[in-house]
């Protein structure tokens, strides 16, 4: 799917009344630069663009709708229109806001429907790309870049799945399972009672699994976010306390002790777990029993199939393994006696078991019950040390709070709330992801595993009653292939994108190199836990551009403030890269961002550039009115729009 934005029009909103036409001949210009001074309505334009494309305004509250009217204006209606082309076919969405009544209404125009429909109704093939989640991926700003790097977000994975069409596999699997369900229900009114009951049970379990899976995902996401918030709050608390000069050293020491104590505890825990794996370390009785077992096992024998050849070949040698010459009689004896040393194939495993018992339970073994007792004692000591270190830090905070530090008290209260929420989320996830306890009640259980087992059993029953065994096996196989294929493809795409991004980052961040270590649900940076604003923006750009250039779906990249806090060198590099990596680039820019970025962008662009400058008609912009060019000017009551390069490059707020 290739989607282009052909233009948009805004009227009666916070954003200026204007019409932007992005067409350059028969095609939209590859690059469109919309220069708007701060406060002109860039944010509103982006909000309206997103809402018009996604149908989101239907869920807006009356006050959200009224927010879109310019303050102090009294017009009753506002309108935003976006013209698209999807695979060359025109689609128009119009969002009509009624400020008086506080409601939103849509109109959609497509050739397929032969005219205007009085609602938001994208053609079926385009609908999947016009969700808020999807559109947000391509309306790029600093916040999006931050989310790409945030461990509490899965933005990177969503972007990969969306652009590389991995969702198609889900659609295939979904179609296959629905087809089987349809086949099972094919009996219609003559469906046997047993089958109807099983089908009802199946639907109920399926629904519960869907709901619980959703809750699990939501809890996992919330857990990540909460963990991140706690970390940020901890950093804030540390910073706050380090501002108190008299306590700074004590607090730093307490933190250090806490980190050291946690490290020691982790090491002792690992050592205890290692030792617990040996039965004789739990109690000498296990070791003695194992030695007794070894003594009662058969004499060592060799596995026949793999060892017989050894004796056959030995009998063909001139000398025996003891060095004596072999004659015909000895050779025959070797073959005959070899049978005493050859046993069943299990002999190999029994030999290995006997060897392990000798190694780990014999006299030379260093694993003993005393060893575990000692390690356990050390582990308990380490736990005590952690508790003491935490208490020390907590006491410091308590004394500050008691002496009237309101800010710290607030932060501590927030932290406690978050810690409690985190505990609840962990409990919930343990319940959902845990093992079934006895016979779970399928109507009330929160155990996904129990429900999945029940689903499988019910499916088997349905399959048996309805005689659709082969159909079910084919469906299951197709679902398994889809599931595995998605994982494999995602892994390969992640690696390829990481390499592409890293090579681009070397160009963009030449003087301040930063590399992506790996791509999981988010992007992980090599050898550092965070990135500067400029680095974050650069990483976000390179990631999205790599993805846009390799994905089979092509979408416009819409960027608010393309340079942000980027330095001149990085602006040049980014400006040069963008046109090479996306089919349509639309950006909202302010005059100070032009430097270095614009020349590089112009040099690299091959598909034409359109320049727009827009400003509000206010007493403060009166001086701009007097310097307007002869051509390319469109004026409305609220704003002036100028199309053209000369005005654009000379414009100063």
């Amino acid at each position, binding site marked *: 799917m290739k989607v282009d934005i052909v233009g948009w029009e805004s009227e009666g909103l916070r954003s200026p009344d204007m019409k932007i036409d992005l067409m350059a001949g028969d095609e939209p210009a590859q690059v469109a630069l919309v220069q708007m001074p701060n406060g002109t309505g860039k944010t509103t334009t982006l909000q309206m663009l997103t809402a018009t494309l996604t149908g989101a305004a239907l869920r807006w509250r009356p006050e959200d709708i009224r927010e879109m009217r310019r303050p102090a204006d009294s017009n009753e209606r506002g309108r935003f229109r976006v013209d698209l082309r999807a695979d060359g076919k025109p689609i128009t969405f119009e969002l009509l806001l009624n400020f008086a009544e506080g409601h939103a209404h849509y109109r959609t125009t497509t050739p397929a429907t032969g005219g205007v429909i009085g609602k938001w109704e994208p053609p079926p093939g385009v609908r999947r790309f016009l969700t808020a989640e999807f559109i947000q991926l391509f309306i790029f700003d600093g916040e999006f870049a931050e989310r790409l790097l945030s461990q509490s977000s899965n933005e990177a994975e969503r972007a990969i799945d969306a652009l590389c*069409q991995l969702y198609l596999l889900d659609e295939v699997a979904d*179609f296959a399972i629905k087809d089987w369900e349809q086949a099972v229900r094919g009996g219609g009114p003559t469906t046997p009672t047993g089958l109807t009951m099983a089908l009802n049970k199946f639907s109920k379990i399926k629904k519960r699994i869907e709901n619980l899976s959703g809750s699990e995902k939501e809890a996992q996401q919330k857990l990540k976010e909460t963990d991140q918030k706690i970390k940020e709050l901890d950093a804030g608390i540390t910073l706050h306390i380090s501002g108190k000069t008299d306590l700074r050293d004590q607090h730093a020491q307490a933190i250090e002790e806490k980190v050291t104590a946690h490290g020691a505890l982790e090491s002792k825990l690992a050592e205890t777990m290692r030792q617990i794996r040996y039965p004789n370390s739990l109690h000498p009785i296990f070791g003695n029993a194992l030695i007794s077992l070894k003594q009662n096992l058969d004499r060592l024998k060799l596995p026949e199939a793999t060892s017989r050849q050894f004796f056959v070949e030995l009998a063909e040698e001139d000398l025996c393994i003891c060095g004596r010459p072999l004659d015909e009689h000895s050779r025959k004896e070797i073959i005959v006696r070899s049978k005493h040393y050859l046993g069943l194939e299990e002999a190999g495993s029994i030999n290995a078991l006997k060897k392990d018992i000798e190694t780990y339970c014999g006299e030379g073994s260093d694993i003993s019950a005393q060893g575990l007792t000692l390690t356990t004692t050390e582990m308990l000591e380490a736990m005590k040390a952690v508790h003491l270190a935490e208490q020390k830090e907590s006491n410091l905070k308590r004394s500050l709070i008691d002496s009237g530090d309101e800010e710290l008290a607030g932060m501590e209260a927030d932290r406690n709330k978050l810690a409690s929420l985190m505990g609840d989320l962990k409990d919930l996830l343990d319940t959902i992801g845990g093992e079934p306890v006895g016979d779970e009640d399928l109507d009330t259980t929160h155990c996904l595993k129990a429900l999945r087992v029940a689903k499988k059993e019910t499916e088997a029953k349905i399959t048996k009653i309805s005689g659709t065994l082969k159909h079910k096996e084919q469906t299951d196989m197709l679902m*398994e*292939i889809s599931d595995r294929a998605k994982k*494999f493809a995602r892994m390969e795409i992640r690696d390829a994108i990481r390499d592409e991004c890293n090579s681009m980052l070397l160009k963009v961040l030449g003087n301040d190199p930063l590399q992506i270590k790996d791509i999981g649900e988010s992007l992980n940076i090599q050898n550092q836990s965070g990135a500067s604003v400029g680095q974050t923006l650069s990483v976000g750009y390179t990631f999205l551009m790599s993805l846009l250039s390799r994905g089979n779906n092509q979408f416009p990249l819409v960027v608010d403030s393309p340079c942000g806090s980027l330095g001149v060198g990085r602006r040049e590099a980014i400006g040069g890269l963008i046109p090479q990596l996306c089919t349509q680039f639309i950006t909202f820019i302010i005059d100070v961002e032009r430097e270095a970025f614009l020349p590089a962008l112009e040099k690299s662009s091959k598909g034409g550039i359109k320049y727009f400058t827009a400003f509000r008609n206010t007493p403060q912009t009166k001086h701009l009115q007097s310097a307007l060019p002869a051509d390319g000017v469109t004026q409305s009551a609220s704003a002036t729009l100028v199309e053209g390069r000369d005005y654009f490059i000379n414009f100063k707020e």
Partner: protein
Amino acid sequence: MRLSINEELKRGIQRAAGELDQSDKLSQRLIAWLNEMGQRELTKQEHSRHLVSVQSAVDTSNIGEDDES
């Protein structure tokens, strides 16, 4: 004009089918289905035609053996 599905996706399907002892014919048919889905909106009948074609390529003779081992 739309493109065919990603090479990574194709390789993923081939690898998954191979791991599950399924034929190349099955992966080719699944890829053909996805290619068409990626290029245009398919009708229900077209989806069904692809599904039948893919299902008929599934080898069910080995299914269930893993569970018993």
